[in-house]
Every structure is written in structure tokens, then in C-alpha cells.
């Protein structure tokens, strides 16, 4: 407990920003999904850091629920990517634009 909590928060902010940049600059749908996982993990790091420094386990319960949602999101998202690939034979999100007006 000698490390200031700011260090963990700055690392978490950095990882979140890297995830945002990945979503914005990459065009491969799977890498966009992996960047979203990175952002979820940086939020988890903040939750665990505060939970540990406050001596309260509710933050870690929230991390448990975030993991559940991440697993569900990964399963459905990858199924959508497979269905898209079957129709268009591409993973480039610039070419998957049928919902774009």
C-alpha cells in the first residue's frame, strides 16, 4: 500500500486512451473488438485499485460483472463478424457499411 493510487489511475487512463486510439485508427473489425476489451480492462484496473485502497470488496464484484459482460459481448460480436465475413468476405469496417445512411 505504499504505491500512491494515482499511479494506478494514470496507467488505467493511458490504457484507456490506447484503446480509444485503436478503435479510431484501425480498420480490422477484430482489432477494433480487441481495443474495446482493452478499454474494459483499464476500467477494471480503476475499480480494483479503489476497491483495494478502500478495503471494500464491492468494486471487485463489479469487475466480476464486467468480465461476464465482456465474455457475452465477445461471443456475440465475433458471431456478427463471422456472419459479415460470410456475406462480404471482408473484415474491413469501411466496407461493412450497410447500416450507414
Amino acid at each position, binding site marked *: *500500500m*505504499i*504505491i*500512491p*493510487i*494515482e*499511479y494506478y*489511475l*494514470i*496507467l488505467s*487512463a*493511458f*490504457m*484507456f*486512451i*490506447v*484503446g*480509444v*486510439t*485503436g478503435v*479510431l*485508427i*484501425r*480498420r*480490422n473489425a*477484430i*482489432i477494433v473488438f*480487441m*481495443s474495446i*476489451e*482493452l478499454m474494459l*480492462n483499464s476500467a*477494471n*484496473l480503476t475499480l*480494483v*485499485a*479503489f476497491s*483495494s*485502497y*478502500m*478495503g*471494500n*470488496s*464491492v468494486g*471487485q*464484484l463489479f469487475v*466480476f460483472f464486467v*468480465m*461476464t*459482460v465482456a465474455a457475452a*459481448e*465477445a*461471443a*456475440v460480436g*465475433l*458471431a*456478427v*463478424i*463471422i456472419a459479415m465475413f460470410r456475406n462480404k468476405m471482408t*473484415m474491413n469496417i469501411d466496407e461493412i457499411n450497410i447500416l450507414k445512411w
Partner: protein
Amino acid sequence: MTIELILFIIFSAIAAVSSILMITRSNPVISALFLILNFASLAGLYLLLNAQFIAVAQVIVYAGAIMVLFLFVIMLLKPEREKLFAAHPRVKTFALIIAVLVFIQLVYMIFLSDPSSSLNPVAAESVKAGTIEQIGRELYTNYVLPFEAAGFLLLAATIGALVLAKKKFD
């Protein structure tokens, strides 16, 4: 320099570098492997924070199950290499500028709010909060309804993934 600080520096350096390498590799398989390295170093950080259960769940659920699913899909589909920084150079410059601005803003807010002045961590309480006993007790008493909802969400996601990835509907 205590051992705690040294371990923190090692794990956080691995996490930061592997996250940057993850978004800059053109081969998606290598990206996924760097993301696994990032998750493993995060599990180390969770152990430093006395969160034993979350550290183990991070390795089993994230680095194990979810990333294996990602690797399966990458291998199943054609892993095409994309040309980095070739298409849309203006969008990428814009994205980098936005990222740097938001990072500066976040760091400013972290130091402005100064969370360590209002927290007085006790190591014994922190160890107790991270045990599987404490988490299980909270999960099955106060948070049993969200727990059931999470189970229902997983069921819905399983059915949804089956329906979406099916070839044609009967």
C-alpha cells in the same frame, strides 16, 4: 525502492508497452498475443492490489477463454494484413490529437481530485476485501439479483451467438 514498487514498475511497463504494440501490429494474430501479455501483466497488478480472486479470474476468463475465442476467429477467417497509416491519414492524425488531449485532461483531473489524500488504506482490510470468501459472501447475499441477471445475460449471449453464426435459418 521496495519490492512492491519494483514489481509495479515492471508490470505497468509491460502493460503499457504491450497495449501500444497491440494496436500498431498489422498481423492480427500478433496483436492478440500482445493483448494476452497485457492481460497477464494486469493479473500481476491485481495481485499487487491484494485482489487474489480477480487476478485468477483475469487469467482464466480473459487471457484463457476470451482470447482463445478471438484467436479461433482470427485463424478461422482470412487474417489479412492491413496497411497501417495508409488509408485516411487525416482521420488518424485527428484520432491521435484527440487521444493526447483526452489523456492530458484525465491526468489533470486525477491530480486535481487528489484521491490519495482522502484515502487511508489499511493493508489488512485490503487483503480481507480481496479474498474469495468475502467476494462470495457479497455475491450471494446483497448482489444475488445482479448475479442471476449476469447468468441470464450469458444464456442470451450463447443463444444469440448460435443464431447469428448459423448458416441459414430453417
